[in-house]
Structure formats: structure tokens, C-alpha cells
């Protein structure tokens, strides 16, 4: 290619598939939900979005830069979307927990489940707490009793704790230098002083070469 872009000129040329060739099947990866804690240790994890990745570990590695390359972050975790149990969404002020019926005591080994609440359409799901339950529906019932604040909760997500790839304790320093990366922040680009000096010197010269502010016609 003959481009102005030196990188593009270094690219190998490629043959675009001729119509008769079967097009390769579209590559498609798994989907993983990403939860992040910013800025402080005490704040709850909040859902931020997704990454596509082939597996949980790769999802963690990729999510770290996709979602936490700014501001302050102390932790991050990911889970396969298929491992998120999702309640229906309610209308108006109705709390989803009003629609959850109590179930008789369930037998079986108790596992740990993480619970997330959405308090309003348009916002993100936020971690509400952990329950011990024998399965997802049981976890929902436990959450109803432990976390139902009475305020409108329009949607609940339930995730089995062991399906989550958490940040390990010794991985916390992954984000150590993040607050110092000011070059990614608007605050590092204050041109105000230079601009003021320039405008001042323009005013001081008797010859106004620039356009005036307004040209009423």
C-alpha cells in the first residue's frame, strides 16, 4: 500500500477472499462479565461491562487493561456470563424480592454465592453481599432475607463464588502506579497559562492580525 502512514506501508499485502471461496466461519469467543472496585478498598464491587476471551484467566488479564487503566483501582474480578443467574426486571417501585417465594429448607451442601442488586434502570449492578445456599434459586431466597433493604431493587444477579476469578492478595500491586499515570488524565493538559500569555501578547501588539471575536453581518 502506498500510504502516508509508515506503519501501514510495513504491513504485508493480503488477498481479499474471492467470491467463490467459502468465507471462514466467524471466530467467536466466550463472554465474561467484569466487576471492578474503584476507588477505595471499602467500596463494593460494581459491574462495568464485558470482555470477550477464550477462558477465565485470559478474561482476567484482558479485563484489567480494558476496564482499569484509569483513576484508582484496587481490585477486579471476572466471571463467565453463562455463570450469572439473572432475575427478571421489575417495573416501577416493585422490588424483585416481592416476587421471590420462600422455599422449604433445601438439603445439600451449602456453597457460597455472590449477590448483586440493580437499584434503577440505567445504572450498574452493585455487589450486595454473600450468602450460603444449596443452589441459585435458594441463594435468591437467602438474599431476599439478608439483603432486602425495602427499597426498590429491580434486578438481582446471583453468581457462585467459585466461578469467579478474583484478584489474588499479592496481585494488588498490579494497580500501584495507576494514580501516577497522569498522562492519561485531563488534568495533565492545562494549557490555560500559555493561552493567557498568548492572548495578552496579542492584545499588546498594535497590529491585530487575528479575526475579531464576532463578525456581525
Amino acid at each position, binding site marked *: 500500500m502506498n500510504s502516508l502512514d*509508515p*506503519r501501514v506501508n*510495513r*504491513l504485508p499485502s493480503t488477498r481479499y477472499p474471492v467470491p467463490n471461496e467459502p468465507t471462514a466461519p466467524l471466530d467467536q*469467543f466466550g463472554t465474561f462479565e467484569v466487576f471492578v472496585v474503584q476507588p477505595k478498598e471499602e467500596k463494593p464491587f460494581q459491574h462495568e461491562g464485558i*470482555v*470477550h*476471551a*477464550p*477462558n477465565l*484467566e*485470559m478474561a482476567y*488479564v*484482558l*479485563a*484489567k*487493561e*480494558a476496564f482499569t*487503566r484509569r483513576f484508582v483501582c484496587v481490585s477486579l474480578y471476572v466471571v463467565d456470563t453463562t455463570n450469572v443467574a439473572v432475575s427478571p426486571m421489575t417495573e416501577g417501585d416493585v422490588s424483585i424480592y416481592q416476587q421471590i417465594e420462600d422455599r422449604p429448607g433445601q438439603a445439600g451442601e451449602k456453597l457460597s454465592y455472590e449477590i448483586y442488586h440493580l437499584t434503577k434502570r440505567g445504572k450498574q449492578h452493585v455487589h450486595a453481599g454473600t450468602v450460603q445456599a444449596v443452589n441459585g434459586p435458594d441463594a435468591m431466597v437467602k438474599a431476599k432475607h439478608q439483603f432486602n433493604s425495602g427499597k426498590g431493587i429491580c434486578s438481582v444477579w446471583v453468581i457462585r463464588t467459585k466461578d469467579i476469578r478474583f484478584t489474588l492478595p499479592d*496481585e494488588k*500491586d*498490579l*494497580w*500501584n*502506579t495507576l494514580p501516577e*499515570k497522569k*498522562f492519561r488524565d485531563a488534568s495533565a493538559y492545562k494549557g490555560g497559562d500559555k493561552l493567557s500569555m498568548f492572548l495578552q501578547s496579542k492584545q499588546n501588539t498594535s497590529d491585530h492580525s487575528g479575526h475579531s471575536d464576532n463578525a456581525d453581518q
Partner: protein
Amino acid sequence: MNDIALKELLYKIADDQLILGHRNSEWTGMGPLLEEDIAFSSMAQDKVGQSLAIYTLLHSLGDGDPDTLAFTRGGNQFQNCVLVELPNGEYDFSLVRHFLFDTAEAIRFDLLSNSSYEPLAQLAKKIRGELRYHTLHANTWIRQLGSSTEESIARIQASLNFSLPFAMGIFEVSPHENELIESGVFAGEKELKQRWLAKVEEIIHQTDLRLPDLNAVEPVLGGRVGKHSEHLQPLLEEMSEVFRIDPTAEW
């Protein structure tokens, strides 16, 4: 402590980081997967940022300011190893280079965190987390691609075979080696290489790849003393293209 020895150490580290960061930044917007494009770019920014920190140290020792050091020196004044100046090739080469180099870099800074030269020790402790991410990323990818399809294994293996002679250039011994070791500034390239080899073997063993016998590898040296491949000069000219329009200008 001899300033010359210290500066030589600082230049080679900073030049490695700048040139590799520059190379890796060429992938931005053209990576194989959106999320990976983002991750690779972050690591390139880390490298350039780290080189800036070290050029800043050099400036405090009396040398030029970082922009001057990075954007005006000629190719034969750069002390990066030849590995980092090579063109990006395909993603297999870039990933293998990332794996080989960053494994060494993490260990180098681990050793430097005990340096008797305090600013370097502080910097090493500070960037530990960044380098941890770089090796986490590299190891995850090498494990994945090194055990997946026939094609990916073949490509990674070929890149490994190709890169190893150049990787030896990371550990090219300095004429001031003994002084650096004795003064406690740096534990030396031999120590670094030993630990690096153990780590690389550990990861490679978790894949279907094979690490060639290092004794049979012909090292490509010279980068540390300004003897570079034909790739560095064009890289530097491109890097300084706008800067050179007016080196005294503020951009």
C-alpha cells in the same frame, strides 16, 4: 561509585524500554483482538513511561533532558539490545519477544530493588506491579498459544528459535560488570541470565513448545556497545521525524 558504570547501566535499561515500547506501540489499532490491542498498548505505555523515569535519572546525573536523550541521539549511541529494535513481524514474534524480554526485565528489576543506588531501588519497587502484569500477560499468552492449534504451536516455536540468539544480547556483559556487582548497584548479567533461563524453562515446560539448547545458540551481540542492525536507524528517524522539524520548539 563510578558514574560511567552506573550511567551505562541506566542507558541500556532505558534504551531497551524505549525502543521496545516504541515497537509495541505500532500494534495499537491493528491488534488481533480488541481487548488484546488495548492490553498490549498499555504495556507499551508502561515501557515508554519507565524509560522516561530512567532518562530523568540520567538527567539528574548531568546528562541531557529525556527528550534530548531519546529524540536526538544517533543509532550508534543507543545501547539497547538488538532484539528490541527488530521489526514487529507477525504477532507470534511480537509475543515471543514480549515473553523473553519481559521475563528478564522483571527479574532485572527484582535484583535492582536491592540496589545500593537508591533512586534505582525505589523505581524498581515502584514498578514491580507493572512488570508483574507484563509477565502475567506474557505467560498467559504463551501458555495458551503454545498448547493450542498446530499452527500456533509451530509459529511460536519458529519465533522462539529465531529470537533466542537475539535474546542472548539482553545479557551482553558490560566492561563495568564487576564494579556494578561489587558496589551493590546490580547483581550482574550472569545472575540475571541464570534466573531468566529457569523462569523461561518453567513456562515453556507447561506448553507443547521446546526450548532450544542455549549452548547451540549463536548470540547476537553488539547492541550494548552501539553496534546495531539495519533496523534501528530508520526507527529513530521515524521516531524523531516531527521533533527534528524544530528541536528547540515546544510541542
